[in-house]
């Protein structure tokens, strides 16, 4: 049973592969109906599937393919001209065949689909030119026999004389049989077939004889064919004379030479044999060149590579650290070399494994010629499809996902884009509309472009329509650029076709396109000109498991944004952020970009930051754009996408997690979801907020808070006394460690710190640089209060982040003024 399963699986894989090619061949066939190669190829598919399905007892499938084969065979022999009507029937039968195969794949049986109608039509078309069916039967039998004959082919060189005698006898008999066959033509073959049932009643000897006879006959026919072929094809001719020399020396009987037909007969085995050898060779070579591998194994391999990439990232990080610490040491050179080799090999390995998962996009493109053909007949338009770059490769998982969106886009182009022939003529275009389907690589992306020369998109019309359908308001429509208007076609519920056809116009298709492309982290770019046509560009990353990401920081958190969605990063000053209807926006060249702070999306607790500048990461996905404000840009890194697991799945805005070089986990931003969330998140971007916060807090002098850090109690008291007149809150710490702990506890929001330099445990410089490591204290004024007055000390103070440097002794007024200035005392009141 297992064996059967195995055979069945092989059969299905093979069948689906064959069918994929079939559609394209068939459409091509319609334009070149007399291309014999093409016909033969198509015939072989039907034949192969028929053979295998009868072996596997799929009667319905066998029945159907049998009749298809029949029809195709007639066409192959020139008994039938393939026109559009015949083609329709053939295509119908192929669809049915696909349906049956799918059924077999899913349920393991082929019953339940009615093929009789289709079979009847096949026969009707076949009988229209009325060629007798048996011919096909013979062809089948012949082929079946051919295999047998091949196996039975005796080895001439190893024969004894007596055997050679016998062989010559056999060849003669064969020759006679052939003559007979010639005489009675196919009738005899039919008779042979009819006599088949009798085999059961025959004695062994009789059966033996019968087999002998059939074999001979078959060989004879083959020989005749070969001879004919040899005569036709010049290159094979030299083989013919050489073959008899194998036979002749061992059996120098003039009789053989005397009969002209015999000459042809012995020549038959030779070419066949050499052909078989060739086949064997190519097959043998083929086995070495390609192996079928379970996708699961590749996935596993990919996962392992992912781990390796993480390890590599970590190694690089450690190397950097070591480099810093042991600068100039000799072993560093060696370590560096090893690290770079490992990272190089890992990258290569990753690419190599990625390549094993790559499939040519032609696998998807193949079904479109057929689709266009059907559509153009259905819609009564003349449409031509031009495909380029079908050899472009991309990851298997993406190939599987990209099919549906493309179907929708192409259907859309046919239905809405390309005009009817008359209209086209009236506009001075050629009657035949063209749709171009192109694929090419662009960096780490694959670009699929669908270009039609139809009527193009009319931005105003799109807006009008959207307003009517309540998708957008008039106000929104006015604010829309042309590109944004094009993007409207991707909104759910939008459809521009005045008439709903079976092809499109239900307003779901393009919506699906957008969702699917976004799922792949892809982008859609539409270009269109009224009257000239539309071009849609789908930009999709090559692989999904390991991606390039931009790492950004907000407060003490880091997030990874897929680089595929990052269009650019800009540094802006806060003045450049405007507020329009409660949304923050900025002007980016000639565009208005809406902004959202990453902290608002991910609920990052933000201690006020009043830095002058902000970094904006411009994200693009499908046709929309948004600016994401972050605190810091860390850099670009190769990351491996890991799932957050069952427990935390489906968190909005998070696509997964990755492990960084330092072993920490960094979350990966789901750009599509983030864009959705940005619409509902209330914005807190802009300086107003920082100010209101400050204004709100500082109602009285005591709301100001200053920390005094000094190990000497006297000094602390002096400072406290100096600042007392201001009425501000003062918190004391005896050394750097304590000060840091007070800060971390977060009980107070400090407006400034007075720091002594000479302290036990942690000195002032170290404290200052520790504090500056925290994002939220970046703008906290640190004032050094010390007896060290040297220039070098001052320099060090500035380096560690101090803003003022007060030397002891000082006057209380001076200290007060410095503090007042730094905490902006009473400025806000």
């Amino acid at each position, binding site marked *: 049973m297992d064996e059967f399963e195995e055979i069945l699986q092989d059969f299905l894989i093979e069948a689906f592969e064959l069918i994929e090619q079939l559609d394209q061949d068939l459409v091509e066939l319609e334009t070149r109906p007399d291309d014999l190669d093409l016909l033969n190829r198509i015939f072989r598919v039907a034949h192969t599937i028929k053979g295998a399905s009868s072996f596997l007892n799929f009667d319905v499938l066998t029945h159907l393919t049998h009749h298809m084969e029949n029809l195709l065979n007639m066409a192959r022999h020139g008994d039938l001209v393939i026109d559009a009507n015949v083609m329709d029937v053939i295509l119908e039968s192929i669809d049915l065949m696909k349906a049956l195969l799918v059924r077999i794949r899913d349920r393991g049986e082929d019953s339940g689909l009615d093929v009789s109608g289709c079979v009847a039509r096949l026969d009707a078309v076949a009988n229209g030119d009325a060629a007798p069916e048996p011919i096909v039967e013979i062809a089948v039998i012949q082929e079946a026999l051919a295999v047998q004959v091949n196996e039975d082919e005796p080895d001439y060189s190893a024969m004894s004389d007596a055997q050679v005698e016998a062989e010559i006898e056999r060849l003669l008999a064969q020759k006679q049989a052939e003559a007979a066959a010639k005489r009675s033509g196919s009738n005899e073959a039919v008779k042979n077939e009819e006599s088949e049932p009798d085999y059961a009643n025959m004695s062994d000897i009789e059966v033996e004889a019968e087999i002998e006879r059939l074999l001979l006959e078959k060989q004879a026919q083959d020989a005749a064919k070969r001879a004919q072929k040899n005569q036709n094809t010049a290159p094979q001719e030299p083989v013919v004379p050489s073959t008899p020399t194998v036979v002749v020396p061992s059996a120098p009987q003039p009789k053989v030479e005397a009969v002209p037909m015999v000459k042809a007969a012995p020549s038959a085995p030779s070419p066949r044999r050499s052909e078989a050898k060739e086949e064997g060779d190519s097959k043998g070579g083929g086995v070495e060149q390609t192996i079928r591998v379970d996708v699961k194994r590749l996935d596993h391999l990919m996962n392992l590579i992912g781990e390796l990439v993480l390890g590599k990232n970590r190694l690089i990080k450690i190397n950097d650290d070591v480099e810093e610490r042991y600068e100039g040491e000799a072993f560093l050179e060696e370590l560096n070399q090893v690290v770079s080799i490992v990272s190089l090999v890992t990258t290569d390995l990753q690419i190599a494994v990625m390549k094993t998962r790559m499939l040519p996009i032609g696998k998807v493109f193949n079904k479109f010629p057929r689709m266009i053909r059907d559509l153009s007949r259905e819609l009564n338009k003349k449409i031509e499809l031009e495909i380029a770059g079908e050899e472009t490769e991309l990851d298997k998982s993406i190939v599987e996902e990209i099919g549906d969106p493309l179907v929708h886009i192409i259907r859309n182009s046919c239905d809405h884009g390309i005009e009817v022939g008359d209209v086209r003529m009236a506009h001075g275009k050629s009657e035949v509309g063209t749709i171009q389907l192109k694929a090419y690589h662009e960096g780490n992306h694959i670009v699929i472009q669908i270009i039609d020369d139809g009527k193009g998109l009319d931005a105003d019309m799109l807006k009008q329509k959207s307003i009517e359908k309540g998708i957008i308001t008039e106000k929104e429509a006015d604010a829309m650029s042309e590109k944004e208007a094009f993007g409207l076609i991707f909104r759910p519920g939008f459809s521009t076709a005045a008439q709903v056809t079976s092809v499109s116009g239900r307003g779901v298709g393009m919506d699906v396109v957008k969702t699917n492309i976004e799922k792949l982290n892809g982008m859609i770019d539409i270009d269109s000109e009224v009257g000239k046509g539309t071009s849609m560009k789908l930009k999709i990353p090559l692989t999904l498991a390991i991606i390039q990401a931009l790492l950004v920081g907000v407060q003490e958190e880091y997030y990874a944004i897929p680089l595929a969605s990052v269009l650019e990063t800009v540094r802006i000053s806060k003045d450049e952020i405007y507020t329009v209807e409660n949304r923050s926006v900025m002007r980016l060249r000639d565009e208005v970009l809406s902004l959202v702070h990453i902290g608002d999306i991910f*609920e990052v607790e933000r201690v006020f930051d009043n830095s002058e500048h902000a970094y904006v990461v411009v994200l693009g996905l499908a046709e929309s754009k948004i600016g994401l404000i972050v605190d810091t840009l860390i850099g670009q890194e190769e990351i491996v996408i*890991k799932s*957050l697991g*069952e*427990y*935390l799945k489906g968190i909005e805005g998070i696509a997964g997690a990755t*492990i960084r070089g330092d*072993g*920490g*986990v960094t979350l990966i931003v789901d750009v599509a979801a983030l864009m959705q969330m940005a619409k509902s998140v209330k914005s807190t971007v802009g300086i107003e907020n920082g100010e209101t916060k400050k204004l709100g807090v500082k109602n009285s002098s005591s709301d100001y808070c200053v920390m005094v850090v000094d190990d000497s109690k006297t000094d602390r008291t002096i400072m406290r006394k100096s600042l007392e007149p201001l009425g501000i809150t003062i918190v004391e710490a005896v050394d750097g460690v304590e000060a840091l702990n007070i800060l971390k506890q977060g009980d107070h929001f400090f407006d400034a710190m007075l720091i002594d330099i000479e302290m036990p445990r942690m000195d002032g410089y170290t404290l200052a640089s520790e504090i500056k490591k925290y994002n939220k204290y970046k703008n906290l004024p640190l004032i050094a209060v010390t007896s060290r007055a040297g220039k070098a000390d001052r320099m060090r103070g500035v380096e560690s982040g101090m803003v003022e440097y007060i030397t002891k002794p000082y006057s209380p007024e001076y200290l007060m003024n410095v503090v007042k200035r730094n905490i902006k005392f009473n400025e806000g009141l």
Partner: protein
Amino acid sequence: MSEKLQQIINRQNQALAGDDQKVDEVIQLVGFIVGEEEFSIPILSIQEIIKPIGWTRVPQIPSYILGVFNLRGSVIPLIDLRARFGLPLQKHTDETRFIVMKNGDDVAGFVIDRLTEAIRMPKRDIGPAPDTISESETMIDGVGKQADRIVTILKVHKLLERNF
């Protein structure tokens, strides 16, 4: 001969059955403290126990889930049992541990205040969860009575169940 064989087989069967009984009678638990109370979980549902390491906050989840952490290449959720049981949060101490529990494919780390000991407990000493809590809601599998104390046994699958 066959009689002898039968005897041997019978004896073996008896021995096996006896083993089963013995294994069945005692469960091994690992006890730990959260807040004031001692809890325990079956030792077989523990993947490992580690000292606290850094974790990453994850947005938009209940506050008792601290975030995710990296356990040798796997990203695993970290749940604070104090918060889960509605107790006030406490800073991690030297005794704080992460217990990584698993149930099938579900794995998560749990923050506990400190470990106590491994407990071998006869099954007959384990009583049902108090009736006041509804059967489907409770995280308590049963209550183990020992000479000087009571140990609450938790349902690991319930702890690992996503409930938001």
